[in-house]
């Protein structure tokens, strides 16, 4: 009887196992500016990226940790908390003085975007979303002209 009880309790405790995701090493979208690479998901430090011109914090409704936004002259970096660190969640390009690694910038036509990135995108209203290995590159457009570009990482909830 003792054995049955112990066995039963062990079964109850280990009903479900936790799966582990295998690391993805394939190529992801990334941004580059002034010979510096911005990799989504990497740890953000001011030492590396410099001091921002504007800073804001956004809390979640209930959970601890802050999404932080560091605004620079031509782009804005948003981070998410990961323990003690802040990792890059998104990079939002602010003007046409910066472009994607592949050479597309704000004010370019949608046709140029399609020429460079192809037609495998998801359309959301007037925006186009390209996905690659857990990262996305989104082009916000208006009347066929790009008005915003954003790199983001897909975070599993």
């Amino acid at each position: 009887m003792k054995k049955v009880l112990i066995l039963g309790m062990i079964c109850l405790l280990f009903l479900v196992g936790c799966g582990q995701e295998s690391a993805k090493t394939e190529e992801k979208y990334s941004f580059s500016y002034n010979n510096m690479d911005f990799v989504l998901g990497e740890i953000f430090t001011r030492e590396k990226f410099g001091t921002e011109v504007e800073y804001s914090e956004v809390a979640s409704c209930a959970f601890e940790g802050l999404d932080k936004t560091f605004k620079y002259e031509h782009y804005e970096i948003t981070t998410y908390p990961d323990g003690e660190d802040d990792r890059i969640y998104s990079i939002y390009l602010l003007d046409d003085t910066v472009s994607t690694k592949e050479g597309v910038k704000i004010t370019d036509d949608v046709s140029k975007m399609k020429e460079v990135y192809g037609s495998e995108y998801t359309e959301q209203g007037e925006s186009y979303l390209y996905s690659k290995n857990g990262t996305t590159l989104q082009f916000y457009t208006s009347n066929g002209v790009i008005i915003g570009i954003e790199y983001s990482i897909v975070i599993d909830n």
Partner: protein
Amino acid sequence: MKAVRISLIVLLLLGVFWFLNILVSPKYMESLVEGSMISEYYDTPKNHEVLFIGDCEVYANFSPMVLYEEEGISSYIRGSSQQLIWQSYGILKETLKYEKPKVVIFNVNAMRYSTPVSEAYNRLTIDKMKWSKEKIEMIFSSMTEEENFWSYVFPILRYHSRIFELTEEDFTYLFQRRQNTFNGFLINQNVKGVESLPTKRPLTETRFADITYEYLDKIRELCEENNIELVLIKAPSLYPYWYTEYDEQIEEYASKYGLDYYNFLENILEIGLDYSVDTYDGGLHLNLSGATKLSKYFAPILKEKYSLTDYRDNEEVNAYYQKELEKYYEEIGSGM
């Protein structure tokens, strides 16, 4: 004899299983208290003429205690973090089993979300709800791809790893609950003013998704069937941005069905909100000072427009509120 022994073993195992389920479930009493709000309603007297439903923009921004003090309004906030519109509908349906308010106030911020946001938020709203048809419907409509229904029925399937992370809170609140809100209002006295906000992204979808309209229709129809006045509001949270395109759609909907819509972002000056002191997180939620101002502004509007009862003249209800108000000011005084 053998059958009796087997039955006893099975009963014992079931008992242990039941106990472990309770033990490993998050208690939401001292940490992540937002998860306790939906169930706190069950312990209160059901005498509310006004019911708020919606996300954090209701439970942080309106104080039923102030509504009562100002105009004698008896109200309850059944809000929860990131409450999605189909969850608001389920909560409204469930509430109507207990009481029939005169006015239901729905915060329209949830119209922007057409898919479940995260399991963590689902859990805060659903975990502690009493079992009902509404809860089951809510689970199925809210689950993310990684979730499964049975983990809501048997929390150990989801929280088994907590067995190694149990804290004092898990034992203290194993079989008891404590009050964390005042009629659904979660007091926060911290001050963190607005300094700057993230850059506003262009809207990718200007029209709210069909599913959100579907549930807004359901909420409206449920209110109509029960002769309840549905009022739409947008709380004065500065972020996430409430786009003009969003506002126009709610205006249009309200006008089509003859509903009142109050976008408090348009009344910031009249309310007297000062975002350097009236918010605890840089503009997402109002703190106690901001919620008090907003509630003082809204109370006379509610009272007059919807001919609400002044419960200060009702001995029984007044006794309840006086007791709550005493605790309310005690908690405020203690700086919690």
